């Protein structure tokens, strides 16, 4: 899709999909055609190179046959929550609880029957500037979920969206989640990305969320893609007055992962906490770019991102906080902590504060280090062997984030996944 020829191919592929409201596909294609894939010459993409997918000219992923084991994994991810499951972007019927209070549908269903739900969500997040990957995603709109929570509604059951992938030849899927939370309403949405084998594919996902006044969204994204996969994600949230967003990103899989997480305060009194945990080793690359736009006064944001890096893995954290003229009495705090398990692992971490108001409280910090050898000796002097001591300390480091998952049952499952990942990472460091 990088050349003119590819653009034509993309145009044809996009045109073959069902029509989207507001000329969305055509406009998005235009936008992508003029911008192209992000390249490392852009400041925001300096450390994350998409050349491999830009050059691959991937076809859209096709429906895969679903066996019993796959069905079980999808059901397991949903647990006793509500939700939808997809394989390669294609919806799979799974028995799950209903999300009482919320309207939950696939994007495919809405394109056909309720296009205005899609149009409304996309119009609202239009105020946020996003990368050209989101335009490409719009051009191929088709996979994903639409969640609408009316005003004054508390949705007790967490909604799980499970995106699993298994391809026979390299392919792409573009996933779109559109979440609208009405005034004083509350909902929890969990996005799972699961590689079912070690196939090569690209997941390009975008989530748009619109929070009404006093609304609360707890959003958790768990990325366990195949080790060969590329994963790019953009989560953009427009926050109304006194609304609260809790975003949590757990990134464990994929060879390359880029997460853009953006919050825009459109009215006073909002709060967002953005948390993340990334664990990478081998040749993995993980990049979190956060962006909080304090366009209204009296809003607060806190960020805590923690990384565990081994092997020759590379990590990036860039935390942008923009406080506009009108963003008086902003309270914005940001912290990025990294634990390096090997000499070859690297992390690039950078706060990016752009402050135009004068009455603000902003702080940022970053740490990068190894495990505390005094703590390891202390544990060993209490009979705990060295590998166990290392695992214990590393797990404790990760648990500060995992412990913030407030979905019943999910935290325990993520703990297990994180533990297994940790054991593998520490094991591979020891065998070197």
């Amino acid at each position: 899709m990088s050349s003119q020829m590819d653009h034509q191919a993309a145009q044809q592929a996009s045109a073959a999909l069902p029509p989207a409201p507001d000329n969305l596909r055509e406009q998005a294609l235009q936008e992508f055609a003029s911008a192209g894939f992000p390249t490392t010459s852009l400041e925001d993409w300096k450390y994350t190179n998409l050349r491999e997918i830009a050059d691959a000219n991937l076809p859209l992923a096709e429906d895969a046959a679903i066996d019993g084991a796959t069905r079980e994994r999808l059901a397991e991810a949903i647990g006793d929550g509500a939700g939808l499951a997809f394989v390669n972007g294609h919806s799979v019927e799974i028995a799950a609880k209903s999300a009482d209070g919320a309207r939950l549908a696939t994007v495919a269903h809405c394109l056909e029957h309720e296009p205005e739900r899609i149009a409304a969500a996309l119009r609202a997040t239009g105020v946020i500037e996003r990368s050209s990957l989101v335009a490409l995603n719009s051009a191929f709109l088709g996979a994903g979920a639409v969640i609408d929570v009316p005003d004054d509604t508390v949705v007790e059951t967490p909604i799980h969206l499970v995106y699993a992938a298994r391809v026979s030849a390299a392919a792409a899927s573009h996933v779109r989640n559109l979440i609208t939370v009405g005034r004083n309403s509350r909902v929890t949405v969990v996005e799972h990305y699961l590689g079912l084998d070690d196939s090569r594919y690209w997941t390009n996902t975008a989530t748009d969320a619109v929070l009404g006044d006093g609304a609360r969204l707890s959003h958790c994204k768990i990325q366990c893609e195949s080790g060969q996969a590329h994963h790019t994600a953009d989560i953009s949230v427009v926050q109304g007055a006194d609304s609260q967003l809790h975003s949590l990103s757990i990134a464990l899989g994929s060879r390359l992962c880029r997460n853009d997480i953006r919050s825009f305060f459109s009215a006073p009194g909002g709060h967002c906490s953005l948390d993340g945990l990334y664990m990478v080793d081998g040749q993995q690359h993980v990049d979190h770019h956060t962006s909080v736009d304090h366009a209204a006064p009296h809003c607060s944001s806190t960020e805590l991102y923690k990384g565990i890096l081994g092997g020759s893995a590379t990590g990036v954290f860039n935390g942008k906080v923009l406080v506009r003229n009108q963003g008086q009495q902003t309270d914005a705090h940001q912290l990025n902590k990294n634990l390096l398990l090997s000499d070859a692992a690297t992390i690039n971490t950078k706060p990016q504060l752009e402050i135009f108001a004068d009455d603000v409280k902003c702080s940022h910090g970053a740490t990068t280090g190894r495990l505390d050898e005094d703590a390891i000796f202390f544990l060993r002097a209490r009979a705990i062997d060295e590998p166990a001591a290392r695992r214990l300390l590393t797990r404790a480091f990760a648990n500060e984030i995992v412990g913030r998952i407030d979905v019943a049952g999910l935290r325990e499952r993520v703990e297990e996944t994180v533990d297994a990942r940790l054991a593998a990472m520490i094991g591979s460091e020891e065998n070197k």
Partner: protein
Amino acid sequence: MTNTPILEIEDLHAKVGDTPILRGIDLTINAGEVHAIMGPNGSGKSTLANVLAGREDYTVTGGSVRYRGKDLLDLSPEERAREGVFLAFQYPVEIPGVSNSYFLRTALNAVREHRGEDPIDAMDFLKLLKEKMKFVEMDPKFQNRAVNEGFSGGEKKRNEILQMAILEPTLAILDETDSGLDIDALRIVAEGVNALRTEDHAVLCVTHYQRLLNYLVPDHVHVLVDGRIARSGDKGLALELEEKGYAEFDRAASA
């Protein structure tokens, strides 16, 4: 009391980097005994305690240490702990994200596994923890707090005694556990140590002050100066040091 040696140190030399710190230590501790090691700052007391616990920052350059007849220096720190050697740290380490009770249970189970015992049942552990916390007069809320994180100096020291009370070591080495403690806490440390004053335990208590020794009457007192034991005696020596200080030894060392 019998004269079964628990710890036999012979001509122990150790260095940090290129600097020799322990320069020939001889010391035997028998079962049932409490020994105090005193001495000026920087004389090597903590170094001795840490070498016995197996800290790798120190290199043993000569001599031997036998623990219950085995070569102690041959064991890793965790093996020593499993065999019953316990060091109460002069500066206990904070471990954010690990609860005190999880830490204590993991430690206890590592010791039990080594002894061929099953892991302790969760309920039994909570009972044991409750009992021992009461013994060291620690608020139950400390069981759920991260190990030593945000603890005051005194709370950290109490926590060391709690660990000791739960692991019931054969050889307890206390490195200035009394420093900075109020009278109540001192009494608790002394009670913790006195509980180990039986036929099959021994205690090596490093202290800068005689204060603790009012509560904890040592069988032997040694003065460490410049990496060597300059004098040994009974509890009377501690009182004498309290009066005269270490000036005499400083002169001896620098002479």
